[in-house]
């Protein structure tokens, strides 16, 4: 047996820049994970279908715009609807403190703001991933 943690890194929403997402994707690869990277402008539907087909353990969503609340929630509720209860959802971006607790309630387990070190994300995934 040689299991690997598989992660989907996706960038929902309309803002067109994914430097942060790419840096995180590379860091996760360097930590030994298989990272499926889908690029910009992903809808909740695309993200969830991709997560199913790629059988990922983790979905990492990167967001810059203020639309994060609805987009994150769209993804987590669609995951629930499809019965994907064992997928860990984490998010990164410029997210105001007051939104963080709401996101966690909505099923986003980890929220990582701008100054986050990649190692912290790696550690968080390793600790919380459901096998």
């Amino acid at each position, binding site marked *: 047996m040689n*299991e690997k943690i598989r992660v989907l890194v996706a960038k929902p929403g309309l803002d067109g820049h994914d430097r942060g997402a790419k840096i995180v994707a590379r860091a996760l*690869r360097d*930590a030994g994970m298989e*990272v499926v*990277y*889908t690029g910009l402008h992903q809808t909740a539907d695309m993200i969830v279908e991709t997560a199913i087909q790629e059988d990922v353990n983790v979905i990492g969503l990167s967001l810059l715009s203020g639309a994060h609340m609805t987009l994150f929630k769209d993804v987590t509720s669609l995951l629930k609807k499809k019965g994907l209860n064992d997928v860990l959802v984490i998010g990164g971006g410029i997210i105001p403190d007051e939104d963080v607790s709401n996101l966690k309630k909505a099923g986003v387990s980890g929220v990582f703001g701008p100054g986050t070190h990649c190692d912290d994300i790696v550690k968080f995934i390793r600790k919380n991933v459901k096998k």
Partner: protein
Amino acid sequence: MNDIAAKVLEGDPRSIARLITHAENTSPLAASQMKKIHPYTGKAYVIGITGVMGSGKSTLIYEMTKEYRRQGLKVGIIAIDPTSPFSGGALLGDRIRMTELATDNGVFIRSMGTRGMLGGLASAVYDVVEILDASGKDIVLVETVGVGQAEVDVIKIADTTLVVLVPGLGDSIQTIKAGIMEIADIYVVNKADRSGVEQAVAELESLIDIACNDKDRKTPVLTTIAKQKKGILELVKEIENHKNYLKKTNRFQAKRRKRYEAELVEIIRKRLMNFIFDESTFKGKVESLIDQISKKEVDPYSAADEILGKILK
């Protein structure tokens, strides 16, 4: 859990995905389920796409898939990227060119890391082709890693192999060097919107004339502009021509036989290696033999004799 195979046969995406993961992890469940689905395989036509990184393989696959969907066919896509030999991780980025296919339930895309395999494929790719085939896909497209090493293993799995090139000085020379001249059933010169297309095609044609391949079929050279959806229909037709040619000349069965041979060899190789290097069997013995070799107390051939002797007794 035991009805994974049954669900795969129904085309259930989550079960397909799960079984692929089990196959990649060489879990015991994978073996038992693969046995169940094998009788239902053999219908999907497998197309391999190889060529260096950036030549447009993923974009071509996206456009070809849209054409196959227009024809009402179901499509499976296997996109392979290199696993880092240092970390064991992989960045799987081929989906970037295919995002619109994600929500089409007639398409199933799986990205794979090579996980230590050379030759442009992933070790579990044979399983994944069988799984997609059994799940009812009519066409399975396999994109090799594209790092420019000899990615010739794709012919073991593909019914038709496309070699994708781009216009540019000396590209066809590189092709010969990389040893991929022999593997092409169809050449695709993509990015034909760039200069140097005529030259690239002429160069290829002359190389094909020199190479003494099947006398009854000359390897066709097509030009495409994948990004502008140009040449796709012609490419799909040429693949159909090749399929008919294989069937007419009885080469189709021979190709499939070669695939099963490669698959069998791969299963045995994996099982043997796991057996030898597993903690519960010989790992300790292997480690101590490596130490002895390092100290020149034993030579590598005698060490190999000793390990194999234990298995073959």
